């Protein structure tokens, strides 16, 4: 399958800004999906609201572009109504961790078979750069003009604690590792969560002395620490600024029975 068999060329040009990390994630996702040879017509893509949540609308398959924060809840209904469909959710830090936080933790807990790709750009990009639940402490945004006084969520650690079967985090700088993790997530039975720390040069980098996308990518590279080497920093590693590191790697890979197996839903007539 060529790139533009997978993506809808007729929907180009897309809404993403130059230098956005969404393109990198879309490329990695396409490669993972294509390498596995998964049937596109048997895969449904669900998004919430935000830049990353727009990705399903560019994929040449069934797409459900839902309300803000509720993508996992919509995907839960869709998956249980059509258990034979593979369901993939594209979401962002605000959509997943703030307004949709309840559905995120309960989705992990329920461990329904779905793949959730969260593009965490540490900011509300589509609305112009407001602080999100992953904006690092002291960083600037339009709603934190004198620096963010709050501390960020660690989405991957939340997913581990809440019970997801597979959890990995990479940045847009580690494309090979990311592609491999997306492959693992797509093959995983149960709730599989891949968080990608991604660059928003326009609304995050520009206000934080990193207006060039390559500056953000360099920052990701310098800050990334493999999880197996980062365990001692567990208290601090949630905070990109204070700890100076982004913990990356596979956080968990386990095989709890998925929800639809537990309730015995096979198919719908």
């Amino acid at each position, binding site marked *: 399958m060529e790139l533009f068999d997978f993506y809808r060329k007729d929907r180009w040009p897309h809404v993403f800004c130059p230098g956005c990390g969404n393109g990198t994630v879309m490329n990695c996702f396409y490669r993972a999906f294509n390498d596995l040879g998964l049937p596109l017509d048997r895969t449904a893509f669900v998004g919430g609201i935000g830049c990353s949540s727009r990705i399903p609308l560019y994929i040449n398959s069934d797409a*459900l572009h839902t309300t803000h924060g509720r993508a996992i809840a919509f995907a839960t209904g869709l998956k249980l109504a059509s258990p034979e469909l593979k369901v993939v959710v594209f979401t962002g830090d605000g959509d997943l961790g703030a307004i949709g936080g309840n559905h995120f933790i309960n989705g992990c807990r329920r461990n329904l078979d779905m793949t959730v790709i969260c593009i965490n750009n540490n900011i509300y990009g589509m609305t112009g750069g407001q602080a999100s639940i992953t904006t690092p402490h002291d960083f600037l945004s339009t709603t934190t003009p004198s620096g963010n006084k709050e501390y960020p969520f660690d989405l991957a650690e939340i997913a581990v604690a809440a019970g997801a079967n597979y959890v990995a985090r990479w940045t847009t700088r580690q494309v090979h590792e990311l592609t491999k993790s997306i492959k693992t997530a797509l093959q995983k039975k149960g709730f599989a969560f891949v968080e990608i720390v991604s660059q928003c040069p326009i609304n995050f980098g520009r206000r934080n002395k990193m207006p060039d996308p390559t500056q953000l990518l360099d920052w990701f590279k310098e800050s990334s620490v493999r999880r197996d080497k980062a365990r001692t920093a567990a208290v601090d590693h949630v905070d990109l600024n204070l700890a100076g590191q982004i913990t990356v790697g596979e956080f968990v890979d386990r095989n709890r029975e998925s929800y639809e197996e537990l309730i015995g839903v096979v198919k719908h007539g």
Partner: protein
Amino acid sequence: MRARPGEYFLQGNEACVEGAIVAGVRFFAGYPITPSTEIAEGLARRLTGTDEVFLQMEDEIACISAVIGASWGGVKSMTATSGPGFSLMQEAIGYAAMSETPVVIVNVMRGGPSTGQPTRASQGDVMQTKWGSHGDYQVIAFAPASVQEMFDLTVEAFNYAEKYRVPAFLLSDAEVGHMRGPLTIPDKIRIVNRKEKGIKRSDEAYDISDELVHPFPVFGKGHKTMITGMTHAEDSRIEPEDPKIHQELVKRLSQKVLMNRKDINKWEVMCPGSKTMVVSYGAASLGAMEVASQDDRIGLLRLKTIWPFPEEPVAEIASHCDRMLVCEMNLGQLYGDIKRVALEAGCRKVELLSKIGGDPPTPSEVRHKLHEMGAI
């Protein structure tokens, strides 16, 4: 498995469960809330097949979202709630209207605002049902007044949700939901199935033109369906900046319901031709029903469909009577529309008997009000 045809003695909420199963519900998502919980409990016991799902979600927003998601999986799906949960669902109800997703939402109304009276009946959500989400859209809502109607109108809510691709509501209340009474399940029940894209069959859903209600593209069938709550063109292209596309879409969403009022509106008349007519619905009509059955000077127009507003039956009844009394268990929500239509149709006086606090208006309260009006 659906209940066998026959005679039963059930609670209103239990009759709703039986109605949903007969209508073909395959997916229910709920969250515990008084006084609707028996519906979730009943469906938890009943939806146990390998092609049926009962799901308890983390909140009501998740419930309605999952129900909409399930509908795109191609199954009949519903949720049940009451006031506070209903308020939480509003954004997604607007999404269902915009994305034209058939879903059934049962609201067993209790006294509000806020936590209000969890165990007491109310009709306080009548206007919220119509206007609860932002933007212009139309919905279909039924108001049952008996255990039998909890069954019958649940089936109808599914039928009309599927036929018109809209969110359809069963607006019950703590009184009707918790009353116990006889239920007859007939041998033959009219069931309308979804007009699915790519499938043509002789079905009631097909008597509406494809231009007004587009055939439903189920996920996973190769349709490459794109569903969004944003303003979209006919081919699902997102066009939030195009005024013409927005106008066409939003007007069609309203017109497919409003233009088919004759098909959707259901009502019952007692003593037609009386000079004084009571207009009521749901539990609020119970007292007036008794009055009208005992006093031939008093008639009753009992609305079973309250949205889309039944203009024609109200106007018809109003044109043949001198005065009207509207009975509601709120501070007058449907009263405004009824008064407008009735006065336009030539009725001289339209008054309101409004009762809140949890009890339906009693027959003596209805008589007292009618006496004040000079009707008896």
